[in-house]
């Protein structure tokens, strides 16, 4: 076992994948020589050469479109969008092309591509370095959407994503790159060094897509969440004393519905937590599924704690980010409902 940050774990996953399969090609803005603005691709160009890991022009549609062409040729591109906030120019290529290629060609052409993008807030990133656009992808048939919450998962999920035969949107919570974050911005920054999931197995291993993980077992209420909010939810449960079962969904699409329903049927209550804005966010899909599948087990209305329906602000970061106080309040109040 080795101690790794999420950045190191992701880099290790890319290294392992590139070492095992020469069809794995890594590229994006500043992803080559410099090794990425978050260092995830650091050293890969030196090790594998500039045709396996390279810098691209600043053109997100070009990055994804070229990746689709490479995937159709038979390569396994892993492309990087510098921030999830900048994925929109590539949206046409992702929705109309990558997601539909297998279907529209009856399996003749496929798109085994991973689109990595740092996501989420809590870093004073303001409007265009903090967004969580996962719902824009979970609404697209043909995509898979993955959000890891720790280094161990990050590596295993990324390797699964690279080996997956279909396009995967891989969203990396940049707030978790260097350490876990439970929303307590007033405390010193934690590191992955002392966290159990900072232990990362060397070499090749995978964490399956479509499988959730129970991060904290509990009997009173189920918390459905992913990414940074896993740590916030865990903290909120400890601080309120509510015996919450925290489920890290890990893959949003396809969803591990079994894990969700098993937990909610057990607890009878459900709180959904995400950083993304509330209206038509992924939480709405989760709430609808829980209502449909667990209606006779529910003892209280399903609650959602999410980002407000505003663009992500700069100075009001901690009034916006759904921290442990807001999540805790939801846990307490749903127990009284």
């Amino acid at each position: 076992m080795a101690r790794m940050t999420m950045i190191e774990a992701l880099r290790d996953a890319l290294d392992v994948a590139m070492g095992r399969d020469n069809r794995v090609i890594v590229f994006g803005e500043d992803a080559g020589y410099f090794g990425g603005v978050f260092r995830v691709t650091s050293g890969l160009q030196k090790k594998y050469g500039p045709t396996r890991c390279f810098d691209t022009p600043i053109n997100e549609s070009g990055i994804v479109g070229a990746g689709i062409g490479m995937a159709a040729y038979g390569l396994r591109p892993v492309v990087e969008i510098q921030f999830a906030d900048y994925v929109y120019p590539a949206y046409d290529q992702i929705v109309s092309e990558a997601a539909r290629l297998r279907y529209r060609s009856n399996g003749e052409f496929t798109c085994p591509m991973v689109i990595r993008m740092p996501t989420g807030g809590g870093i004073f990133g303001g409007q265009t370095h903090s967004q969580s656009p996962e719902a824009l992808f979970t609404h697209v048939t043909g995509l898979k959407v993955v959000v890891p919450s720790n280094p161990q998962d990050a590596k295993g999920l990324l390797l699964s994503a690279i080996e997956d035969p279909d396009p995967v949107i891989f969203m990396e919570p940049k707030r978790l790159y260097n350490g876990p974050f439970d929303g307590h911005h007033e405390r010193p920054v934690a590191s992955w060094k002392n966290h159990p999931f900072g232990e990362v197995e060397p070499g090749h291993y995978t964490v399956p897509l479509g499988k959730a993980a129970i991060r904290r077992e509990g009997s009173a209420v189920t918390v459905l969440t992913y990414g940074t909010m896993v740590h916030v939810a865990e903290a909120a449960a400890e601080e309120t004393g509510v015996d919450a079962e925290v489920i890290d969904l890990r893959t949003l699409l396809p969803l591990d519905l079994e894990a969700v329903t098993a937990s909610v049927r057990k607890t009878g209550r459900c709180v959904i937590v995400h950083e993304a804005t509330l209206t038509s966010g992924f939480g709405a899909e989760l709430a609808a599924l829980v209502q449909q599948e667990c209606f006779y087990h529910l003892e209280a209305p399903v609650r959602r704690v999410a980002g407000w329906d505003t663009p992500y602000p700069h100075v009001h970061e901690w009034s916006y980010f759904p921290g442990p106080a807001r999540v805790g309040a939801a846990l307490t109040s749903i127990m009284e409902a």
Partner: protein
Amino acid sequence: MDDLPPLSLRVPAPEVRPGDKPDFSHVTIPRAGTVRRPEIDENPEDMRDMAFTIIRVLNRQAEAVGPWAIDLSDDALRDGLRHMMILRAFDARMLTAQRQQKTSFYMQHLGEEAVSCAFRKALNPGDMNFPTYRQAGLLIAGDYPLRTMMNQIYSNAEDPMRGRQMPVMYSDKPQGFFSISGNLATQYIQAVGWAMASAIMNDRKIAAAWIGDGSTAESDFHAALVFASTYKAPVILNIVNNQWAISTFQGIARGGSGTFAARGLGFGIPSLRVDGNDYLAVLSVARWAAERARRNLGPTMIEYVTYRQGAHSTSDDPSAYRPAEESSAWPLGDPILRLKNHMILKGPWSEERHAQAEAEIMAEVIAAQKEAEAIGTLHSGHRPSVREMFEDVYETMPPHLMRQRQEAGY
């Protein structure tokens, strides 16, 4: 500054509209054989002139002249003419089939047959086209079964796309024909990526990107050019300038640029314009560009100057926006007629043989159509199963789709 007049917006408009006399006097057409042929490895900087002229081989007398003239065998000529004639007959039959409601939609190639039919002959097996919806000649010139194309158009039980795609959105990997998308220009950058992949793997295959004049305005056209330029990808960047994007004349997409080919110059990409109704010129230029790509000399842009004689699609009526006689006034003529005249001049063809070939080809197309219709059309006969509607979204069907398939009763 107060003495300056107020600003005004320029909105380009075609010279003529319905009811006006067609006028192509603004289209400068060099005499056949007069445009030079650069060496394959000529510095792109030194061939900027090629983006502002039109390479032509067949002259008014139907002779093949000049440095771009190629000496095709009689068989190759007959093949070329045959492919164009099949495409035209195929279009005519499918247009009628749409009017008979045997299919929902069709798009013809009338007047543009030389572009895709000739280009196909410059490619090798394994090369990949990223076509638009108006390059079916790539399939026909590859002797792709007409019946299979019709099965796709009819969305019947033998449609290779399983009824999932609108008519004419073909896909065939062995033919080097990438799956067509309704979203314009997306495939242009994908072609560049495919070519980059071939280069990354030290392969010998090249890619061909296709786009119309109107779609060059899309962002992905720009993306493709910058990527092709940066990585010197082995790709041929084709622009089919048929003067019209539905109702919009080419001046709207072209703006102040002299030609569409000139767009490539800013990216350092050698860019040529060619007479798109001249089968020999198209093939000759395509071979030149393919050789450049295969020798790892990088991308080439080719603008095919042609004219969309037919309606944009079966859902379009061009008399609403252009003069009805405009297509007959088009100065580059008809691609089939021009090659036919050349072949008659050269010897291997005659009016009689042409008439006979026309009849044979129509019979061949009708026979294929009967076979396809015996399987089914949009509203009758055998269709793909509804069960298949849920397949191939992913390689393995996820649980939520399985539940929906069951809910739908399959």
